[in-house]
């Protein structure tokens, strides 16, 4: 095995599970995630990793088994996408409430209807209130690293909450990129073995998932989870420092790009960030003080870090690859909330929505966003700007016309 391999995001996810020496992989196929479980099934079959992979009849069952196995003491890895995540949605809240520190990879895909295969983030963001830590990958290396980081943070006794690591379908899942695979020794040093909290036991029986039937008890436990989630922020910082020492790769919950003197800043996450960064570089060449903030961690929401990075900027745009129908961009609202109490908050905060169902965003479109930041008077404040090019609209109209729809 070479130290750097060309591999897809899906393969990188499988590698992370293998390196983490997971015990149990409950599975259910769904495009574009399926390659992950196929790869793991193959490795287990060939004796390359010692784990049990069981294919379920649905994601709801798969996630139930993932949670109970984790409570029983197994390190659990699972993966899903879009419709699958939503089909199993009920169990997300159960898993976090059970304090089962498993890792779930979501390969983003737009949610039907209309039915589609390519990515946006409505699927993963629907889980934002569920008590899962959320880490979002920009590239295939991130996929591998963030999964390892997720295990370390989730299993930490100060946190004990599950994680979702998100990668974009197609743009990462099926795209081959160079990925550095850390050695077993390095992963062993970074990730201590999982020690479950009071697992089921014949001589010391335990009750898990009991009802509370009182608002006070319910609030008590929910607040407890909230505090653990907030604590995850520090634990992630601590873990990423250790990870960087071991691998030389830094992973911050919020990453700045050309921020030092930036006046116009774009906030975004996931794979399109790579194109956003290219746009920043091009604008810099033209002398525009552009910069970018990449959100890696969506939960716990890094509000304080964001406020720190965005204060004193002239104008900020939030790029949402999701759409809360009737509201607009989900992350825009969250960023706005994070900035409200910052006295030196930017005067202009623009919401931009694009990339729904995997619709490509060109570098020019990102440049256009920076152009709007320089001339915010061109748009209505607070109203989201939809990225939809004229040629794309013409193509849609043509498709409809060709099919003979009147």
């Amino acid at each position: 095995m070479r130290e750097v391999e060309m591999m897809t995001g899906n393969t990188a996810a499988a590698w992370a599970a293998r390196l983490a020496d997971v015990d149990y992989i409950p599975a259910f196929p769904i495009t574009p995630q399926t390659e992950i479980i196929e790869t793991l099934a193959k490795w287990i079959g060939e004796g390359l990793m010692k784990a049990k992979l069981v294919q379920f009849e649905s994601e709801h069952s798969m996630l139930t088994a993932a949670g109970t196995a984790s409570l029983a003491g197994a390190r659990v890895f699972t993966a899903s996408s879009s419709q699958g995540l939503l089909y199993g949605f009920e169990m997300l809240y159960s898993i976090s409430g059970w304090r089962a520190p498993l890792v779930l990879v979501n390969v983003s895909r737009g949610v039907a209807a209309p039915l589609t295969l390519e990515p946006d983030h409505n699927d993963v963001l629907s889980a934002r209130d569920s008590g899962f830590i959320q880490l979002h990958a920009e590239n295939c290396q991130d996929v591998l690293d963030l999964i390892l980081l997720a295990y370390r943070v989730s299993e930490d006794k100060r946190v004990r909450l599950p994680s979702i690591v998100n990668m974009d379908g197609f743009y990462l899942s099926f795209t081959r990129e160079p990925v550095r695979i850390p050695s077993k020794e390095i992963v062993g040093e970074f990730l201590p073995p999982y020690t479950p909290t009071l697992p089921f036991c014949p001589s010391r029986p335990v009750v898990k998932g009991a009802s509370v039937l009182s608002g006070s008890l319910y609030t008590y436990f929910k607040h407890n989870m909230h505090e653990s989630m907030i604590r995850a922020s520090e634990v992630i910082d601590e873990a990423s420092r250790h990870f960087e020492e071991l691998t030389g790769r830094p992973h911050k919950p919020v990453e700045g790009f050309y921020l030092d003197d930036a006046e116009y800043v774009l906030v975004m996450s996931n794979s399109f960030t790579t194109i956003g960064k290219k746009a920043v570089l091009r604008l810099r060449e033209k002398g525009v003080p552009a910069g970018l903030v990449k959100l890696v961690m969506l939960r716990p929401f890094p509000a304080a870090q964001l406020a720190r990075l965005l204060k004193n900027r002239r104008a900020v745009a939030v790029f949402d690859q999701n759409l809360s129908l009737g509201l607009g961009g989900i992350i825009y609202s969250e960023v706005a909330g994070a900035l409200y109490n910052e006295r030196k908050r930017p005067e202009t905060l623009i919401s931009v929505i694009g990339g729904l169902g995997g619709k490509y965003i060109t570098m020019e479109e990102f440049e256009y966003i920076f152009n709007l930041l320089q001339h915010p008077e061109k748009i209505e404040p607070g109203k989201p700007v939809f990225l939809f090019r004229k040629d794309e609209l013409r193509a849609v109209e043509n498709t409809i016309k060709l099919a003979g729809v009147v």
Partner: protein
Amino acid sequence: MSETRYKTLRDVPAEEYLLPGSPECAGCGAQLVLRIFLKALGGDAVLVNAAGCLTLLNVYPYTPLKLNWMYTAFASAPAGAQGIRDALDILIEKGKITPKEDLKVVTFTGDGAAYDIGLHAASGAIARGLDFYYLVYDNEAYSNTGFQTSGATPFATSTKTSQPTTLNPIGHEGVKKDLFEIWRSHKPPYIATIAPSHIVDMLRKIERALKYRGPKLFIAFSPCPPGWGSDTSETVRISKLAVETGVWPLKEAIYGEVRHTFIPKVLKPVEEYLKTQERYKHLFHPRRQEKVIKTIQENINQYWQKVREKEKLE
């Protein structure tokens, strides 16, 4: 049949795993079944539960149980059982726990979960050959939410969602799903019906099931006084009548081969059973619904005629 340690009621193990102090109703058949079931199963187990009345055995921070418990969700208790079984297996295989720490895994749900919302998950678990027990307390409706029709509700039953009216004097017009046959079509090693009036029969069945690896089902007749409109002191008598009128056949199937463990010599008329419960009152008051009662009786007769013919052939 083979040797058994259960010959009379005196052989019921003294060990208790379900202690007094649960919040369930007086006369709850389901709770009675669970108590006896655990005596034969032993305490080295984990009960994996789905939403239902007996979920409320455990209301934080109390439990009347002396064994492990996992509440999952309404639809997926068998999958929850699979997760625990698989985890124990792989952890033992990897040497992370010892075989001494192993547990029997028991899915424990009502009929709403077993016949309706969780049937899909059960089917998957059986098809994967999961080594688990599934105990269904069948009170023939969604009792926990106030007694609405379920897939287990028998024909002509009055429930909160099938109340007899002048337009429809019958009550529930559908038929009870045959869960025994649904499971049997998957050919699991062991399935049985049990009743709290026939305790020795129940204990022997659990004893037999203990020998098999794979999915093992017990469908327990579970009178529910508030839902059925029966007296709390009548639970065992109603159960006895259900067996003697042939409403609730006691049987088992080993790898699909059915055997009745009790064949009534003469069937008591079903009326005797129906009259013990308010949920069938509309069949007798204000007017006797002769046709409906006859249909119920004929269905029972036909069932037992087939059983007798088969027995004769053998």
